[in-house]
């Protein structure tokens, strides 16, 4: 059976061109970029070229503002805990939203146990943070604001520039988790006054195990990982040369193709949303119809359960994810849907279709053909 992958927000396949770029740095040139001999110089050059390329794509002031980490989660952790360690003696308020990825929420909660004051701001029914909430919460004791650029579950895009400007006005460091934005939306760090930004290579057709942390030159933070002079003493550990090279290559390709790809994905996702809403009466679209990532479609089906939908689609070759309590490890409905004040029963039937490069119009037609009978069958089984 043909497999149709529609879970690109979870991860993406590595592009063949990216693999080609990475290949020389596994066996052929394996040297540690921190070593002194000639082959190490080649590896070091590859890493530094990647750093420069990424800085240029993001329009950063300098490649010295780009740090390589092991993943988006690590980048988020470095910023949040690193800024907290910088302010360990005086503590202070740390502000975020209630719809962040757990890689932000949990470090915030953890810091709450050590005397910091975490604040989780509410969002509206579309999952959008009103920037006035930042104005209301921010004060002279605030040491960090962290707001995700786009949400991984519903794809809602935040008014990140406005939020960044408010933080700048109050001179509070601002971090954005841009893991779902890298390769999907234009990031211009000269236009956007953010102090910290996190990216993850495997979300934009790069390799797993590579994260990027952008930290503006004046931004102060302590390292999490000690053990050497790597990454300007901010992140010890031998550099992942092939991964870093692949990360830069993938960001380069996706940035180049972004505009056309977004148009294509918008068309496909709109077709999916409209098709489902027309064919399935119990379907609900979640999130914002315009202010959303072109690839992300979140739909709930009231009266059927999300994991059952996921399993049924999987048996037909379609791979998606679900936000229902049953399909999560902690048996809770998605905190994002909860924050959006969604109907808790409908939220049990939450599904996310996140499209990408290899999805076609035929894939959408196929889903629109098989989904209505799946929902119909599960509805017949259901008590509700």
């Amino acid at each position: 059976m043909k497999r149709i992958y529609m879970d690109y927000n979870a991860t993406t396949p590595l592009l063949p061109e990216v693999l080609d770029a990475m290949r020389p740095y596994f066996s052929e040139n394996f040297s540690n970029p921190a070593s002194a001999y000639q082959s190490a110089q080649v590896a070091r050059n590859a890493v530094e070229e990647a750093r420069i390329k990424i800085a240029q794509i993001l329009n950063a002031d300098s490649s010295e503002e780009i740090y390589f980490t092991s993943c988006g989660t690590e980048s988020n952790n470095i910023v949040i805990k690193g800024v907290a360690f910088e302010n360990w003696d005086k503590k202070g308020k740390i502000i975020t939203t209630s719809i962040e990825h757990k890689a932000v929420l949990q470090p915030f909660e953890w810091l709450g146990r050590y005397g910091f004051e975490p604040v989780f701001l509410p969002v509206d029914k579309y999952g959008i943070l009103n920037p006035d909430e930042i104005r209301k919460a921010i004060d002279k004791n605030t040491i960090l604001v962290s707001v995700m650029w786009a949400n991984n579950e519903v794809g809602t895009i935040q008014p990140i520039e406005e939020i960044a400007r408010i933080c700048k006005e109050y001179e509070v460091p601002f971090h954005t988790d841009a893991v779902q934005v890298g390769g999907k939306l234009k990031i211009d760090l000269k236009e956007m006054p953010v102090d910290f930004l996190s990216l993850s290579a495997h979300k934009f057709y790069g390799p797993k195990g590579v994260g990027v942390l952008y930290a503006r030159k004046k931004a102060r933070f302590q390292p999490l990982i000690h053990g050497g002079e790597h990454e300007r003493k901010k992140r010890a550990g031998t550099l992942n040369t092939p991964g870093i090279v692949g990360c830069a290559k993938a960001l380069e390709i996706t940035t180049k193709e972004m505009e056309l790809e977004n148009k294509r994905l918008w068309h496909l996702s709109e077709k999916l949303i409209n098709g489902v809403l027309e064919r399935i009466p119990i379907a609900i679209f979640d999130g914002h119809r315009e202010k959303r990532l072109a690839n992300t479609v979140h739909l709930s089906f009231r009266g059927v359960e999300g994991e059952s939908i996921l399993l049924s689609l999987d048996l037909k070759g379609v791979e998606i994810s679900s936000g229902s309590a049953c399909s999560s490890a902690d048996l809770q409905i998605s905190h994002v849907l909860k924050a959006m004040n969604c109907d808790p029963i409908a939220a049990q039937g939450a599904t996310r279709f996140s499209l990408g490069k290899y999805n076609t119009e035929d894939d959408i037609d196929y889903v629109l053909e098989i989904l209505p009978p799946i929902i119909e069958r599960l509805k017949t089984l259901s008590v509700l």
Partner: protein
Amino acid sequence: MYSNKVMEHFMNPRNVGEIENPDGVWEEGNPVCGDVMKFYIKVEDNRIVEIKFKTFGCGAAIASASALTEMVKGKTVDEVEHFTREMLVEELGGLPPNKLHCSLLAVKGVKGAIEDWRRKKNQNVS
């Protein structure tokens, strides 16, 4: 993630539906927390002669309810009251740890329907 047996019950659940004028009926669970199961039984000479169910829930919930209806059909109520969730999990070829509660829900649901039958029977006698 699931055993073949679970997937088979999920795709082809047995005894789905409702019974008109059941001798016992019970709904277990809460839609806000996840799964809800409803069981209907017909009892003759202390024996479950017919059983139907409906489930709002995940693959494990649907399979648990379906497999349990097969296990209890034709058994006496006394036999069924000794059923444990471990027996159901074994019948299903195992369940992932975070899905074990689904099997408990099914067992509680069927026992609830039996209790309902007993209650109604006692009312009729008195």
